[in-house]
């Protein structure tokens, strides 16, 4: 067992996967010699050779398109999109091709690929290094969508993603790479080495896709979230004293509906939190499910806290980011009715 950052955990997952299965290949922009702009693939080219870890041309559709072809020919590509904000050129290949190869060929061809992408804001990255486009994937039948919130989960979930027989979108909250950011941007950052979830076992272990984690037991309300916002929610609970039950969804598609319904039926109240723009965000789906399945137990309106419906601004980053104050207030209001 070692303490790792989330980047190290992600790298370790790829290392383990490449080590155990020669069909796993890794490529993307700057991932070869240099090891990626976030250094997630550092050392993999040296260890596994240039034809298993290499630089790709700056063509996201080419990267995903080639990965699909490789998967059809027996490989298990794990590719990197440098920022989630740059997945759009690949959106056609991801949604119209990868997601449907199995279905349209009735299993004659399959598409076991993993598409990693750093996601979310909080690094003053402006409109094109901050986006959280998960809802653009959760609407697509045939994809799986995973967002870890800590190093331990990141490694176990990424190994599961790479081993999964279907295409998995693996979104890495970049603000968590170095530590469990709780939204207090003006306070010193805690490193993962000071956090329990920074403990990452060596070797292979897998966390099943489709299972949420209860990161805080509580009875006052249920807070549904994922990624960076898990830590913001924890901070808000601590600061408001609201006895929130906090679910880290981890996999958005397929979703752990049972865990959600069980918790909301228990608490009778629900707050939903994500960093992405509110309208048509994944929070809409969550609210709809809760409203449907827990209707007779709900004691207060479901509240959503999310990024505003604007592009992600640069200077106003902290006014945009749904930090602990906004989350705390939504919790308190939800406790009131």
């Amino acid at each position: 067992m070692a303490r790792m950052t989330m980047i190290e955990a992600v790298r370790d997952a790829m290392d383990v996967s490449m080590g155990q299965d020669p069909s796993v290949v890794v490529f993307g922009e700057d991932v070869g010699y240099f090891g990626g702009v976030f250094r997630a693939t550092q050392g993999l080219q040296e260890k596994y050779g240039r034809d298993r870890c290499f630089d790709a041309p700056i063509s996201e559709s080419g990267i995903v398109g080639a990965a699909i072809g490789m998967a059809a020919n027996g490989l298990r590509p794990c590719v990197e999109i440098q920022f989630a904000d740059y997945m759009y050129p690949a959106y056609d290949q991801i949604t119209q091709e990868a997601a449907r190869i199995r279905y349209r060929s009735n299993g004659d061809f399959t598409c076991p690929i993993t598409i990693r992408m750093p996601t979310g804001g909080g690094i003053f990255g402006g409109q094109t290094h901050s986006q959280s486009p998960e809802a653009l994937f959760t609407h697509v039948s045939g994809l799986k969508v995973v967002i870890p919130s800590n190093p331990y989960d990141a490694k176990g979930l990424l190994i599961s993603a790479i081993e999964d027989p279907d295409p998995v979108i693996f979104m890495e909250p970049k603000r968590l790479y170095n530590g469990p950011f709780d939204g207090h941007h003006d306070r010193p950052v805690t490193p993962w080495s000071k956090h329990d979830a920074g403990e990452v076992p060596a070797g292979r272990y897998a966390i099943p896709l489709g299972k949420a984690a209860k990161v805080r037991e509580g009875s006052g309300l249920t807070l549904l979230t994922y990624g960076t916002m898990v830590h913001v929610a924890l901070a808000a609970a601590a600061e408001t004293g609201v006895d929130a039950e906090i679910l880290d969804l981890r996999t958005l598609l397929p979703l752990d509906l049972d865990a959600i319904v069980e918790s909301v039926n228990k608490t009778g109240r629900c707050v939903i939190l994500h960093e992405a723009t509110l309208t048509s965000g994944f929070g809409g789906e969550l609210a709809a499910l809760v409203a449907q399945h827990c209707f007779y137990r709900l004691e207060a309106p479901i509240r959503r806290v999310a990024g505003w419906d604007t592009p992600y601004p640069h200077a106003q980053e902290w006014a945009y980011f749904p930090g602990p104050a906004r989350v705390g207030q939504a919790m308190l209001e939800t406790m009131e009715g």
Partner: protein
Amino acid sequence: MSELHRSSLSLHVPEPEVRPGGSPDFSNVVIPRAGEAPRPEPDARAEDIRKLAFTIIRVLNREGEAVGPWAGSLTDEQLKAGLRHMLLLRAFDSRMVIAQRQGKTSFYIQNLGEEAIACAFRKALGPGDMNFPTYRQAGLLIAGDYPLVTMMNQIYSNAGDPLKGRQLPIMYSTRENGFFTISGNLATQYPQAVGWAMASAIKKDDKIAAAWIGDGSTAESDFHAGLVFASTYKAPVILNVVNNQWAISTFQGVARGGAGTFAARGLGFGIPSLRVDGNDYLAVHAVASWAVERARRNLGPTLIEHVTYRAGAHSTSDDPSAYRPKGESDAWPLGDPVIRLKNHLIAKGLWSEERHVQLAAETMDEVMSAQKEAESLGTLHSGDRPSSRDMFEGVYAEMPPHLRRQRQEAGV
């Protein structure tokens, strides 16, 4: 700061020579003589053979003789088999167009006039090689001896459809026969083919891939992605462009723009690029074999522009008389691939008009008996069909809970 006198600009919008009402005119299409184009060594550099991207490699001359350095890649038996495949495909098309009109299926796309390309190309490939076709390469299946009845089952979305009714007619898929699942989205299969070929190289295998695209679809971005990856990783892939002059109602000039040919695009990537007479079974086979050798010897990709003409409508949803002149197909200077191969066989003393009529009748019989068999399994609106249950299967390897719930809700 420019000191030029500024005259006003205007937009250039390319248009075909002739539209309905006019008479077909291909006088601007330069057709080189058969046998003229040289045959370089397969390890030639793109720059050294660039002329082959601006001419048309042809083997069969007007007299039906096979001439020049590209001749001789096929035995007599293979030639006769080629003729049979093309006739089969033509019969298949004609029956399926009628079946669609009869409401037995929703949609069909035919290959009329372009039969030589996929049929001959298929014979240059080996077992385990993989095509990434468009909807107009059914010849790959026919020449690969894929069962006609299975093709029809797919077209009818009937109980025998290997794709369980999920796909639009003619969007076949058969890994075993080297035919990747067709996408309705144009061009997406181009980088996929390159990726497949790269995987072969990564695995140190000896299988190669072939990508397919139409003239109009070369404008799509994924065409570029495919070329970039093929060029960078020297992937063992053959990049086919089928220039049949039309993209629905849009003539090839709109996608081609100021370049003389589509093959020219490949040169911009340092990829050896050749144009071939797509209505000449022998030429297509020879050029394809050359490209296959390149790929197999790890010499990298080849781009082939197949010059042909879409003699039929774009699909059963289309009526080309609205946008192109009557008789344009007959005026097409490269002729009909079936007649040309027939004449060659006759010139060689291997064939006769009588045997041809007989073969045409035989292939039609074969198609009709396959059709009968397929229809006994059902058609789109009658007989046995894939179930609604099939609709919920295969989205994932394992059905996740939400789909299970939905299937229950649907009561199936």
